[in-house]
Every structure is written in C-alpha cells, then in structure tokens.
C-alpha cells in the first residue's frame, strides 16, 4: 500500500516533468501549422491551422532558399558522418589494442587538446581553408566537422577495452591480421558505440552555427539550415517568416529522427554475451 502511494507520487512528478519537457516542442509544431503570421500571439493554441507554411518554405525560394540549404546540410552531414565515424573508430581501436611508443602520451595530449573549445581556432581555420582556396565551400565544412573527430576517441576506446582480449587472441591463432580482427570481430560487437558515433556526428552540421557562419560568410548559396533559419529571424522578416521558421525547424528534426529510429535498436542489443565459452 505504502509502496503504491510512493509510486503514485513519483508518477505524478514524472508526468508533470514530462509535460513541461514536451510543451516547447508541441508549441513549435503547432506554430509551424499556424495560420496567422507573427512571432508572438497572446494565446497558446493557433486560431487556424494550415499546411501552407511548409509549402511556402520549399516553393518560395527567392528570398530564402530553404530546399537548397537543406540539401547542403544533408550532403555535409552524410559525408562528415562517414568520415568522422571512420576516424573515431580507427583511432579508438588503435589506442585500445595496439601498443606503441608515445601511446600514453598521445592519449594525454588528446585529453588536454579536447579541453579547448573548438571555436578558439576558428579564424585560424578560416585562413588555412582560404590558403587552399576552399573557403566558402561545402568541402571546407565537411573537413571542419570531421577532421577533429579523431580526438574524441575516449568513449569508443573505453568500449573497445571491455571486449575480452581473448577473442582477439583466438582470432589471431586462426591467422587473422589486426585489420581483420577490427573488421570481423571488434566492429560487429561494438555496434552500440559505432551507432552512437554515427548519430552524434550526423547531428553536428544540423545544429552548428558558429563554424558555418565564419566559413560561409556571404556565400548564401552554401548556407546550412542553421544559418539560413537564423537569417529568417532578422527584424525585417521575423513577423512574416516566423511560422515558416517553425516549419523549417520541424523539417530539420526529421532526418535526425529517421536516423535515430533506424539505429535505435542496436543501442539496446546485447554486446558480448555468450561469445566466449567459459
């Protein structure tokens, strides 16, 4: 009896928190379907619903070319996702399984470097890219988002460390090389961490504003959605474009949501259970 009462209190608290958490998202979604223009309305529920905001977002591209920005971001995130996943997993495997001189020191250096915020080097990165003549291009963005990824190997390395060494040794006895062990043994068993890397690196280009704005500057055609959507909020546009901005925000969440739904089941999958016989 006492237990169920305690549970009831917990459930009430949790549902209140849940509602508070969901409200802003609900509001954005409702705003994206709102018929009346304007950024502020004195009421919560829109007076009329329309799908026009979404249609206008893609159809009217003279002022804001959202479809172009959307495909830019998609391209950048797909490539940088592939590249950075490759970097992270390779570095982690190397640090976890191979033994070489400077290994410990390199790990320490990486830890210290990781403490500095990335945008500290922003202007330097801009000038380096300009030196190679690729500033204001999508290639530059892909490079910026993926090249630093190798530094973030700590989580994945920790994961690899938990895979029993005896598996590697067994494979080696059967004549597998290090590369084969990585591909055939370690990777299939570390899907959760590989997926985690994929999702986080896929998300970065969708939410990053600061690097994209420095690198793209005035190159409107190559903007990403974060830059583009923000430019809709300038004081001349915010009134007439706010509902469209909300529609854009909803659309942006779709690719990330799809990726998450597709990969989510790997998160919970058993990892090494039963692979080594006692």
């Amino acid at each position, binding site marked *: 009896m006492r237990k169920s009462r305690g549970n009831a209190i917990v459930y009430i608290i949790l549902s209140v928190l849940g509602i508070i958490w969901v409200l802003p998202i609900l509001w954005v979604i409702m705003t994206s379907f709102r018929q009346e223009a304007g950024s502020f309305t004195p009421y919560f529920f829109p007076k009329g619903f329309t799908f026009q905001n979404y249609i206008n977002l893609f159809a009217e591209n003279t*002022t804001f070319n959202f479809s172009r920005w959307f495909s830019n971001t998609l391209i950048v995130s797909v490539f940088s996702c592939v590249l950075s996943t490759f970097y992270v997993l390779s570095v982690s495997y190397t640090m976890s399984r191979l033994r070489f001189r400077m290994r410990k020191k390199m790990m320490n250096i990486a830890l210290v470097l990781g403490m500095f915020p990335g945008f500290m080097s922003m202007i330097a990165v801009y000038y380096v890219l300009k030196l190679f003549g690729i500033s204001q291009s999508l290639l530059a963005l892909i490079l910026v988002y993926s090249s630093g990824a190798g530094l973030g190997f700590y989580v994945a390395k920790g994961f690899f460390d938990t895979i029993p060494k005896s598996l590697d040794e067994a494979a080696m006895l059967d004549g597998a090389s290090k590369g084969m062990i990585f591909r055939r043994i370690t990777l299939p068993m570390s899907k959760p961490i590989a997926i985690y890397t994929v999702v986080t690196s896929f998300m970065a280009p969708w939410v990053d504003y600061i690097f994209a704005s420095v690198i793209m500057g005035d190159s409107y055609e190559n903007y990403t959605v974060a830059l583009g959507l923000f430019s809709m909020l300038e004081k*001349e546009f915010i009134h007439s474009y706010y509902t469209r901005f909300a529609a854009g925000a909803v659309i942006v969440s779709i690719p990330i949501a799809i990726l998450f739904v597709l990969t989510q089941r790997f998160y919970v999958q058993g990892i090494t259970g039963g692979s080594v016989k006692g």
Partner: protein
Amino acid sequence: MKKILSAVICLVFLLGIFTACGKNTSNDNNGNTETKKISLKVWGSQDDQEFLKKAVETFKSKHSSVDWNITFAVVGEDKAQNEVLKDVSAAADVFCFASDQITELHKAGALYRITRDDMMVKSRNTDESIKAATIDNNLYAYPSSADTCFLYYDKSKLTEDEVRSLESIMFKDLGNNVTNFAMKINDGWYNSAFFLTAGCTLFGENGTDPTVCDFNNENGVMAANYMIDLASNEKFKNFDDAKIKSGFASGTLASAVSGSWNANDIKKSLGENFGVAKLPTIRLNEQDKQLITMSNFKFYGVNAQTKHPEEAMDLANYLTGEDVQKLRITQKSYAPTNKMLIADEETLNSNAVVRALTQQTQNSVLQTSIPQITNFWTPAEAFGTGVDDGTITKSNVKAKLDEFVKSILSKIS
C-alpha cells in the same frame, strides 16, 4: 622512414601554398590587362537585395562603356563590421553599414577614403550625416538613409492632435483592456530618449568622449522619475516588437514607439487606421519638451582593398544619390539624407512613415560610434528593467543612476 614521411608532408603543404598563390596572381593579371571588364561585389541586407539589383541595372545602363560584372551577397548593415573585419580582402567592394561602425572600420583600415566627387557628396547630404561620415576631415562613407524610432498609433483610438503629447495620450480613457502607450523601456535605443530630452548627454556634447556621461545629474533624475511614473501607470506597457505588432493586430494597443522595419506589418493589421507621427512631447519641469531620440545613418562604404576603387566609388555614389534615395522613400520607407529630398514636401508627404522618420530625425542625437557605446546597452537594459518591475523607485533613483553611469563609463579593454 619517418624523416622521408615528414619531408613528403612538408612538400605537399608547400605545393599547396604555391598553387594557392599562383591562382591569385593570375587572377590579378587578368583583371589588369582587360581594363574594360570590371567585377564588383555589393553587400546589402536580405531585405534590400531586389531593390539593389534594380538600382544597379540602371547604373549599368548609365555607364554602358564598361563591361560590368556586379554580384550581390547578403550581409546586413548591422553585421557589416564583423564580416568585413573578419577578412577585408574577401569582403565586398561596396558594402552597406550602420554609422556607429565607422570608427572601428576606419581603425582597421577597411574603408577607402573617398576621393572622387567628395565635394558633391558633401554638398548634397545633410550636415549631420556628413559629420558622421567624416573622420579627421576626410570623408569615408556615403550617407544613404537616416534611421530612428517614431510613433505608431491607431487612428480609431487617438487623433492627430492627441498624439502630439504623451500626457494627452495617457490621459485618454480607452477602456480597460486597451494599452494607451507601449515601448520597449528596457532597451537603450528607446529609453535613452528620456534622458536626452531632459538635456543629458551620453559621452559629452559631441558624443565622442568616453569618460563623460551625465545621466545622473538633476536632469537625469527628472527623466528617471518621469520613466518611473510612466511605468507605474496601468495604461503603459513595456512591449517588444512582437508584442507591439500583436497588440495593434488585436486592437488592444493605441500607440507605440518602434522603428520603420515594422511599418509594413503594422500597416497591414491596422489598415485605414494606420497612423504614424514623430514622437510626442513629454512634460518635464512644467514644460512640454519634444522627445529626442538616438538616430543613426545607413552608409555605403568602399572596401580599402578593392581592385577597382574608382568604379566602386562611382557605384556607391550612385547608390546613395538623389534618384536612388527617392526610390528608397517610395519603395522601402527609408528616410533620406539628401537635402533636396528633405526639402521636397511632395515626396515626403507621399510616404507618411518617411515623413514621421524625417521629422523625428531632426529631433535626434547621432548614436555615437566610439566603442565605449558597447558598455551602454546592457546597463541601459538593466535600468529599464528595474524601472519596469518597480525595483527602481523615486527614493533610490539617484543611487541607481549613479550605478548606471558608473557601468557605462567603466573602462573597456
């Protein structure tokens, strides 16, 4: 093995550098040998793009002897300073910027000194705008338009006579749920008006001395007391742009202070009842005083590193000339800086917003361009918020003003 590897890496980098340089120099040569082909880039806000494109087409047809290649990119006048100073060589040849950025742009060597037709530019624009565009007796920018805030009102609720004074606006009984007057009182751009009206100055008479601000003298206390009375009145509300617009749309707001960027939206929601005027007078020390606002100008500048300074100056000159300023009045509701246009009643009367703007500009103080101004906005916001929520009262106002001034004048690194 390692040595060879590092040597190879060095070589690759060097090659990269050389090829990058090589590309640039060949471009330069092309530009110089074919003198008739001129490439220029123009920066303007997103809102101005179509307007600029049309204006540039006319410019091209007037200078048809040159093969123009004029491109456009979006960098608004408020962001010009950041974008230009990030990389002057990559910035546009002609760009639009707000007048308060001129000191920093000039200091960084980003502005080309205007040497072509500068006497003409000086003579055709208002003295205030030329003064703002001049540094050490040299002209560095082309004034394009003047900007400040003014009064929007709903003609069904207030008459033209009533909006002449804030007292008569506040006095009128418009019903319980109607706000008589709204402004963003916690924003230095708007609330500085009370101090300026009372006779205070920000950074001295010329607005260029970072060690002087007398907002805490007797006049300042008077202005602050006026603000406290206003804020405690139930017919006044502290509204930002979004709330002002929705207030007019729902008919619960009679008048508000805002800028010209909201004109179209408010016009749409008020329709026939759309009214604009210069700001009202306020009653200080038994006298009706016209509210004095901060104003600034939109300038066009020429990049100091442009490859074609003469052509760039011609273009900037045209974009800020009388014809284009006139188009700005009719199409964009921008207030002119051109003397002829300001004197031209017919043109001004064709656009009520521009008329109100121009009248208010004549009752305004130029927003300073010294960097110390960055220390003004946050304390001004804090002071306005204090007035609005009642933490600043008539009994502690002097101490709060002293604090306010102290933070404005605190040294910036």
